[in-house]
């Protein structure tokens, strides 16, 4: 046990692997938030006028809002005037036309992160829209996608090239008045991903993007908009790492998904941002608004998330089941270790007839981690035969962690069938004993049991993410038992 404990110690004490900072000239907005900052951002991005108007409306609305305090996460108040709202790697004259034109320093950064763009192009068959701080630097596979009529580009590019699509769909799922952080994002969003799949097109590859927060003190405000037109389908992957930092960083993204008739969107996230050190110093605040709208009949939106990073994760990927026979799914693994806090869950809003939703949430708390599932299932009057099944399980490792479950169930239609189940427990001594008796170390046994606990969710991830997620979970958990 002693050697095992020693091994554990080394594993726990090891530093965040991805903690480095690239030294690249940045073109930054001055610190602080004002109408000038917003005009600055909009001008830098050469945005059409309607976007600036929209940003300013959002900003004026944001000024009337108060920071929400109902969640079970605790953090010091954020000084919104102490954040740099725009930071772009300095461009040489114009945007790069190929990978060769990209700042070599930047490419090395991606290499360290394990995203070799060039190789990926050939080997992985994954189109990567890499976001480095606020500007999308390179987008691959564009040609292939363009042949199918698929628009997959950075948000700013979409605003310039497809303003009609942006105007039509942006803010139609998450209004700028939605909540405090959504309003903030709407006012200052820097960049993000835009994706439009035309009618009847099945996207030929997994779309993916890597977010990375770099320049010091620059809160990152992504905005992602994915539209699957009638009969289209797409699978989108999002993964993140961030450099080490002492000051807390704010990440307030907005993700909007729109599925029209018979369309399908699968959105998967592996989030491994810097969680802060053992004493809870530093780390990312991940306050995200994610929502999908099953606008058409028989549409389907599925969220899968593996949340192992961030000092605080606070998000509720939701689905509005507006179309008849539409389906919403939420599969989540949230792991908190050391001083991490997570308050996450989903909202399933049943509006159309025969709508169905499934919620599977697995929370794992270790160390002094705080993990809360908070979810809403709401069945409105017109949602004949709506069906929901929710399962929220929590696993506790160690006697200083905490796990909470706060489901809200509101049913206004008698034909609806809503079921919710939740359990909280620790790993059974008998399970551990069984594994160890067969020669597994305590560490391996726990890792195996936890992976089994999360299997239902991992099964829903695309292949390459599932592998990554399992490894991530193993690494994040090491040292939490002994």
């Amino acid at each position: 046990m002693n050697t095992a404990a020693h091994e554990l110690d080394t594993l726990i004490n090891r530093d965040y692997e991805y903690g480095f900072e690239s030294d690249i000239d940045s073109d930054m907005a001055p610190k602080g938030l004002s109408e000038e900052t917003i005009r600055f951002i909009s001008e830098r991005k050469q945005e059409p006028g309607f976007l600036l108007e929209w940003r300013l409306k959002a900003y004026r609305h944001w000024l009337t809002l108060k920071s929400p305090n109902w969640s079970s996460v605790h953090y010091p108040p954020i000084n919104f005037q102490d954040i740099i709202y725009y930071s772009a790697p300095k461009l040489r004259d114009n945007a790069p036309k190929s990978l060769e034109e990209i700042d070599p320093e930047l490419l090395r950064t991606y290499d360290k992160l394990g995203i070799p763009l060039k190789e990926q192009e050939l080997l992985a068959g994954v189109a990567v829209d890499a976001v480095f701080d606020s500007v999308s630097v390179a987008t691959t596979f564009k040609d292939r996608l363009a042949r199918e009529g698929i628009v997959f580009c950075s948000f700013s590019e979409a605003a310039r090239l497809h303003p009609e699509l942006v105007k039509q769909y942006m803010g139609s799922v998450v209004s700028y008045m939605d909540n405090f952080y959504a309003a903030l994002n709407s006012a200052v969003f820097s960049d993000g991903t835009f994706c439009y799949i035309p009618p009847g097109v099945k996207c030929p590859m997994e779309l993916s993007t890597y977010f990375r927060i770099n320049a010091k003190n620059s809160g990152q405000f992504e905005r992602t908009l994915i539209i699957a037109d009638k009969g289209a389908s797409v699978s989108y992957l999002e993964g993140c790492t961030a450099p080490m930092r002492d000051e807390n960083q704010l990440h307030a993204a907005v993700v909007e998904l729109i599925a029209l008739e018979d369309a399908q969107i699968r959105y998967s996230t592996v989030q491994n941002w810097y969680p802060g050190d053992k004493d809870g110093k530093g780390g990312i605040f991940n306050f995200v608004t994610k929502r999908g709208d099953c606008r058409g009949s028989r549409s389907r939106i599925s969220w899968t998330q593996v949340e192992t990073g961030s000092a605080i994760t606070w998000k509720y990927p939701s689905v509005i089941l507006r179309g008849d026979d539409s389906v919403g799914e939420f599969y989540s693994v949230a792991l908190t270790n050391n001083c991490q806090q997570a308050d996450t869950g989903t909202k399933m809003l049943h509006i159309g007839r025969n709508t169905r939703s499934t919620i599977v949430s697995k929370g794992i708390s270790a160390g002094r981690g705080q993990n809360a599932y908070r979810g809403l299932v709401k069945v409105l009057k017109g949602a004949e035969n709506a069906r929901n099944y929710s399962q929220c399980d929590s696993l506790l490792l160690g006697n200083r962690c905490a796990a909470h479950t706060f489901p809200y169930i509101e049913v206004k239609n008698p034909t609806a069938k809503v079921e919710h189940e939740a359990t909280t427990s620790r790993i059974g001594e008998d399970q551990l004993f069984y594994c160890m008796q067969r020669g597994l170390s305590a560490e391996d046994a726990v890792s195996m049991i936890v992976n089994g606990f999360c299997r239902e969710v991992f099964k829903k991830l695309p292949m390459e993410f599932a592998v990554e997620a399992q490894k991530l979970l193993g690494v994040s958990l090491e040292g939490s038992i002994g």
Partner: protein
Amino acid sequence: MSTIHSEAAERWLKDFQSDFSKSAPESSWLQTSRRQAIAAFSTRGLPTTRMESWKYTSLSPMLATGFRLAPQVEDSAALPYIEKSLPANRMVFINGRYAPGLSNLRDTESLILIPLTEAISRYPQELEQCMVNPHLDNGFSALNEAFWQDGAYLRLAPHAKPDSPVYLTFVTLADQPCVTHPRVMLFIGENAALTLVENYVGKGPYLTNTQSAIHLEKEARLDYLRLQCESPAAHHIGEVSVIAEAGSSFQSHSIALGGVLARVSLSTRLNGNGASCKLHGLMIGHGHQHQDEHTHIQHAKPDTSSEEHYRSILDDASRSVFCGRVTVEEGASQSKAQQASHNLLLSREAEADTLPQLEIFNDDVRCSHGATVGQLDETALFYLKSRGIGQGEAITMLTRAFAQVILDSIINPFLQEKLGALIGDKLDKPQDGGAKHVFFHG
């Protein structure tokens, strides 16, 4: 607080203060406690739907009502609400005042059952300690503490186990909208056991704002049946707080049948090793009834266990809210908690909101909860119909069976049978509301 809430709070406070008259001079600590409660109410005000725990229960419709403190009425007026054949241990309150002519007190060494005002003059120090609540965190408990007129005091000596149940009946008779603030204090001694029934009935438009405090000593046992059969025009706000010491067990049945708006919050603190509780609840709604049951179970010590099972049956445009929170504190290892909430919707207009919540701060626990909302099982209905039972009767059968699960856990067979009949009546003839349901004594 919204303007309508603050205006109502101001008006209520002013009216209650002018209506309030003491039957006898009060000791200084009591006066201080009332003054502090008034101050607390002035700052807290009335709860609004912006508060998380009142999200689903809006007081707005009742705030327009100009409630006054309930006036004294003749005992005889309450007779239709009280059974003639009276059992031994019984206390009746009419409009918040003790009715000696209808009550039958006990004042023996093993069981003391007396009005609270009398208990205060008899045991001033003891009651000063436990009656003054320094944490008046909501407006209604502050109002109760400021304006209570009387209530029940019960003390059961260690090892005493009386055979027959104790009944506390609160009758409110209102021609004009009025309010009562009854209080109940129960102390169950070490290894003692008791069955207690708290019953609320009445006529007309009124508000009952009641507070019950229950203390179970080591190894004590209490079966607590709370029966809310208020008049169809009544509002009912009830708070019950229980402290259960080591090895004690608390079992409750909260049955909500009456009232237009009723809310009961029951908090149980399992305060000693091995303490346990079983909470059951049944809400039945018709018309525009709004039934709200909030529970909070705190596992404060190791080896504590809790079970919770609430059901609601909702017809017409009625609505039920169930919020059950279970907290397992850091030191409470080896705790077990189980929670279930099942809701039956019988009409298109009905609504059920359910929030089972777990807050766990210890890893050595086994906790689970489950919740369902739906209508009657079609296959079960079909089965009955295929055997020649009419649609209506089949629905009644299945609905009763759904309610029966809660009643089955009542230990006292007499109470179980009477309550079964009462609930059958309510399900069959909802229009009679709670007013018809006289309480059942022997």
